């Protein structure tokens, strides 16, 4: 199970990869907020198209597909439930057996669909083109507590290690006669013998890890330094100004105009 990593980031040196992680984070925020404020299919489609364009420039478009796949049930459910059962039902669009698809419901469903897709794609821009440690490093240098930064990075390192344990635990319990296949009750009963060792082990390990951190000066109160200089990111100010004005414009337009 070695060499397993949790994060999805792919390195290829595209212009999107070279952008400031914080700018990308701000992009995600702006894109999602705007998509929920804009009222028409066309405008939301444009926002989505921008996110997709970013993915294409970042050469990671293909990697977004499995991530969309994870949200497939949610997307399908929105379409079915709103399309067939939305309370505003007037115009029949389509008859499928005993069910009727209505135009009003479908229209709403389609709009939500675009927004959710944009949410996934916009986040995709961030998570597929940014190294998590680079993002956390940038956040810490902008004032996020180093202790919290530690927590975020440590999750990414530790979960793969914990996952590597599961095989060993299953072997150890099967060697003691634990059955994991069969009726629902048999499977339910085997849950705690499987999860229990992971919990106990990882909690007991937190004690040793705390010691390891203490002896490396984790709690020292003096000023800290960082080994890596933050790289100079191009177009940071321009991008941020652009995004801010866009956001302000949409807010003003939707609320006062």
């Amino acid at each position, binding site marked *: 199970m070695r060499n397993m990593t949790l994060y999805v980031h792919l390195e290829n040196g595209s212009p999107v990869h070279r952008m400031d992680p914080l700018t990308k984070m701000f992009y995600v925020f702006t894109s999602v907020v705007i998509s929920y404020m804009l009222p028409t299919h066309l405008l939301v489609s444009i926002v989505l198209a921008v996110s997709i364009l970013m993915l294409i420039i970042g050469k990671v478009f293909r990697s977004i597909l499995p991530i969309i796949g994870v949200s497939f049930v*949610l997307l399908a*459910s929105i379409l079915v439930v709103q399309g067939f059962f939305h*309370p505003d039902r007037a115009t029949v669009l389509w008859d499928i057996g005993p069910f009727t698809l209505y135009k009003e419901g479908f229209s709403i469903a389609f709009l939500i669909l675009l927004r*959710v897709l944009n949410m996934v794609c916009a986040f995709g821009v961030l998570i597929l083109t940014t190294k998590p440690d680079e993002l956390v490093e940038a956040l810490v240098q902008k004032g996020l507590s180093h*202790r919290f930064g530690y927590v975020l990075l440590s999750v990414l390192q530790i979960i793969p290690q914990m996952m590597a344990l*599961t095989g060993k635990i299953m072997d150890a319990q099967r060697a003691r006669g634990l059955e994991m296949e069969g009726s629902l009750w048999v499977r339910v009963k085997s849950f*705690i013998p499987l*999860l229990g060792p992971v919990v106990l082990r990882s909690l007991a390990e937190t004690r040793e890890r705390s010691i390891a951190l203490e002896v490396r000066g984790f709690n020292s109160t003096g000023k800290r330094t960082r080994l890596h200089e933050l790289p100079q990111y191009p177009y940071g100010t321009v991008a941020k100004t652009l995004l801010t004005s866009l956001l302000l414009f949409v807010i003003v337009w939707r609320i006062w105009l």
Partner: protein
Amino acid sequence: MKMVRTGLWSFRFSTAALVLIPAAVGINYIGKLFVELLKLPLWVDSIGTVLSSMLAGPLIGALVGIVNNVIYGFTTSPVSFVYAITSAVIGLVTGIMAYKGWISNIGKALVLGFVVGLIAATVSTPLNISFWEGTTGNVWGDALFAWMTAQGNPLWLASFADSVVVDVPDKMVTVLISFLIFRNLPKKVLTMYDTKQEIERL
């Protein structure tokens, strides 16, 4: 020596409490992994959150909840960012109620699970309505939602019902499992998060 506030709302987290966060998020992941492996008809993806609240209080529990969803959003499904608030509230409520004694026996733990489920559903409902007009992506819950809206019930009620049928049983099972594991924890682990310890002189 620095003053350290102790008790339920202690803000200056000990190293042990901080290191607990990644472990607890890991437990959430592994719990989910085993559920899928054993093909159990449940979600049960917040055992670590609940356990950490029982051990280290509501604030750590809430942090575990947030970190869990942020990391899950980062690695598997961005949609999970939306529910970071729900996860935080699960940690918060469990931590407070556990501190007030609602994990002293199995009956109380079930009540705790019920309350956590109900509150989780309450927090999720406005999120579900504003982000996707009320559905949750759970087949059974959404079927109920569809039926209720078709019957002419208000959107918020249908959406709440959608969340409740999913969250309440799920959180009751989660809290029950966490309680069973919590009961078996060694003193060595329990004392680590006890912020009230002082050095005694011999």
